[in-house]
Structure formats: structure tokens, C-alpha cells
């Protein structure tokens, strides 16, 4: 089981790199879509960076329940840990 802080650090790092967002704008309660300025095409690139960094495939419909960065962290952490247990 990976440490939560390690996973969150990695997520923030690739979001800053991939979406060229100011790291200071990222915070757990902030809205993911608004901060990253995501359009429909960007969600595809989000799937790609998650796969490249954590080696699992996100179903696009999973994003329906993700609103804040905290939601996003929780989702990634649960998938990473589920994979570790599998």
C-alpha cells in the first residue's frame, strides 16, 4: 500500500507538467475541471497520464463522480491500493 502523500505528490507533479497549471492553484477543495481548464479532449489526456504514471486505465465515466482535487486524489488512491491488493 502506497502512502497517500506520495501518491498525491505524484498526481500534483504530473498535473502541473501535463496541464501547465500553476501549482499554487491546486488544493484539495478546488474544482479540478476549473483549475485545469479541462475540455472534453483534455479528459482523454488525463486518462493517458494516469495510465503512464499508475499503470491502470480510467473509464471516462468514472470522471462523473470527480469534482474536486480531493475527489480525484481519493479515486486514484483507491484504484492504486485496489491494484496493490489484487
Amino acid at each position, binding site marked *: 500500500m502506497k502512502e497517500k502523500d506520495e501518491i498525491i505528490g505524484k498526481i500534483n507533479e504530473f498535473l502541473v507538467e*501535463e496541464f*501547465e497549471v500553476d501549482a499554487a492553484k491546486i488544493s484539495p477543495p478546488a474544482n479540478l475541471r476549473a483549475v485545469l481548464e479541462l475540455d472534453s*479532449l*483534455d479528459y*482523454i*489526456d488525463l486518462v*493517458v497520464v494516469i*495510465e503512464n504514471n499508475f499503470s491502470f*486505465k480510467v473509464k*471516462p465515466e468514472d470522471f462523473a463522480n470527480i469534482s474536486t482535487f480531493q475527489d480525484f486524489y481519493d479515486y486514484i488512491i483507491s484504484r492504486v491500493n485496489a491494484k496493490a491488493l489484487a
Partner: protein
Amino acid sequence: MNRVVITGMGIYSCIGKNRDEVRDSLYHGRSGIVLDPARKEFGYRSGLTGFVERPNLKGLLDRRARIMLPEQGEYAYMATMEALKQAGMDADYISRQEVGILYGNDSSAKPVIEAIDIIRQKKDTMLVGSGSVFQTMNSTVTMNLATIFKLKGVNFTISAACASGSHAVGLGYHFIRTGLQDCVITGGAQEINYLSMGNFDALSAFSVHESDPQKASRPFDRDRDGLIPSGGAATLVLESLDSARERGAVILGEVIGYGFSSNGEHISNPTVDGPVRSLRRALQGAGLQPGEVDYINAHATSTPAGDASEARAICEVFGEQTIPVSSTKSMTGHECWMAGASEIVYSMLMMEHDFIAPNINFENPDEDSAKLNIVKTSITRNINVFLSNSFGFGGTNSSLIVRKWNKQTL
């Protein structure tokens, strides 16, 4: 019919990344050809290629625009930025006008191959990312530039093999001449990467003079043994005379003739008759006699058959040892889909600065090239009218004629 003038030019090529650098290279006869070891390792018969670094667009374009652009689109962006700046067209002007784009491009091999490799490996199409489809299509350059510059006029790509760029300029000329558009961004783009040219190398069409890369491209020379692939992008802003005058734009030249033809024969073997018909159509459209042309920028790519056929065609239309001729491909290599547009830019720079660039490496003529007046070293010359040839696979031919702009031509 409207008169069609050139008000902006941009170039990003293996002999320079802007007009000034390219002008100097042309004048001094500098070659942009290198030997690329990666091509030899990959299985190429010839590792020779033109080379220019990819521009760093971070800070110039946002992430979304950048991930849509393949290599040749980056070159086209740089060339178009330079051309629009010279034309004095900013975003505000473009937003208020119907500016079009017609650009030559006939492949986008690298993004196709890279995407397919990912799908094969990961068994999931989504993992190619959102930019891939927009990079892989032949119309990638026009779809991207039209989006980046927010163009509202005609918008499509011309794929006509090695005459793509020339036909793009010719079609832009017709759109404006007939009053369909006031302003069209025209040009040509060509990718330079080892994934894009392997099947062309397969035809043994490339020079294998690898021991001296800068001497390998030798159009019209007796000892030529093939072309050298190259690339980059060139942009020309075409505009109706009325539009240019209304804006107070500086007019650089006037497109006065566009000839075209199809050989109607073999897919790769050249003919004399096809180019002759293209040349004559261009002269007829321009209302010129052959003797009124001051310089011919030849298509000549350094292949044995192609150069010989073009020499015969020029000779048939213009006579023996008459008009000065050079092939700038002796320096640039064959810029393929881009060449027809870049060679207009090269010739425009010569016309602007009163010189004819040399056909470097022309040391000994053969039977056909001996009949041409080939310029071996840079010469000072006032050019009033030039003609540029471009020919491509499938027997597609294009000839453009441009006249210097001066107040007397008003």
C-alpha cells in the same frame, strides 16, 4: 479579375529559420544537408537529409495548440508567424476579415506510426491521447493554423506530392483573382524525420554520396545520383491588390501566372511534354513571351531522369542557353510538399536583393543540362520576372510566374 500580390513571406528551412538567414545562405551557396546516422541504423539505403531543429513553441502556443501540431505544423506555424508579421496582419485584423488558408502537405507519417505503436502495445486506442488524430491527418497543417490564427475564409490542404506547395500558391492566386477571397495564407510544409521517408528511400531515389553530404545534391550535374529529402515550411500571404492598397501594405511581388498539367503517363517516370504544357500555360496566363522571364528556379531534384526531362522541357519552351536557371535544391535538398512554396520565397528573396542564387555542385553538364544557362556561382542580377517549376509523382506539374512590384506596374 483581381490582381494578386504577395504582402508577406515566412520561411523555416534547413538553410535558415527566417528570411534573413535564408537570404544569406542563398547568396553564399550554403548547403543544409547532413548525414543522419539514425537513418542508416533504421535501414535506409541513404542517410542523407536536410536538417533543421524543431522550434520550441512553449510560451508561444498554449498546451492544447501544441499537442495538436505535428513537426511540419510547427514549422508552418513559425513560417506563418513571420509572414503575417511582414504583411502587417495582426489578430485584430484577421478577426475582422475573411482570411483563408491553402497549404500544401502530403504526409504526416510520424504521428501515424507512433499512434499505431501505442495501440499495438497497449491494446487501447484512447492511450494515443487527444492530439493524435489532429496530427495524423493530411490536412493537419491547415486545420491547426486555421484554429490558431482564427481564420474564417477558405480552409483546406492541397496534396499533390512534390508540387503540393506550388499548387497551393496557384490555387490561392485563383481564389483571389476570381474575387472569391481577398486574402489567402498559402504555403507548403514537409516533415523531416526518419519514419517519414523510408518508402521513398526504397525506390533508390536518394543520393548515396554520403562521404560528402554537402556535395551530394547536384541538380543538372553529370554525376548526380539522386535527391536528398529535406523539409520545413514556407508561407506566402497572397492578397488582392485592392485589399493591399486599402491596408497600405508593402507589396513584395505580383503573382501573374499559374500553369498546371498532368503527364498522363507513368506514376514516377517524368515526361517532357507534361512540364512543357505547364510552362506554356503559365506564360500564356501571364501574357508573357518566354524571353521576358529573367530567372527560372528549376524543380530539378538531382535525379538522373527528372533533371534531364526538365532540362529538355525548359529548352523546348525557352530555347538553348537563354534564361539563367538554378535549382536551389542543390542547397536545400528536396523539400517535397513544401518545395513549391519555399522556392517562391527563395526566388522572391533573390528578386528583392538583386541576385541569382547558385546551383551549387554543378561541375560538369550532361547532354541535356549543357543546353541550359545554369548559374554556378551567385551573380548580381536585377530580376523583374521569375518562374518556378514543381513536379510530383503521378505526373502532376505546376509552374508559377511572379513579377517584381514597382509603381510602374500599377
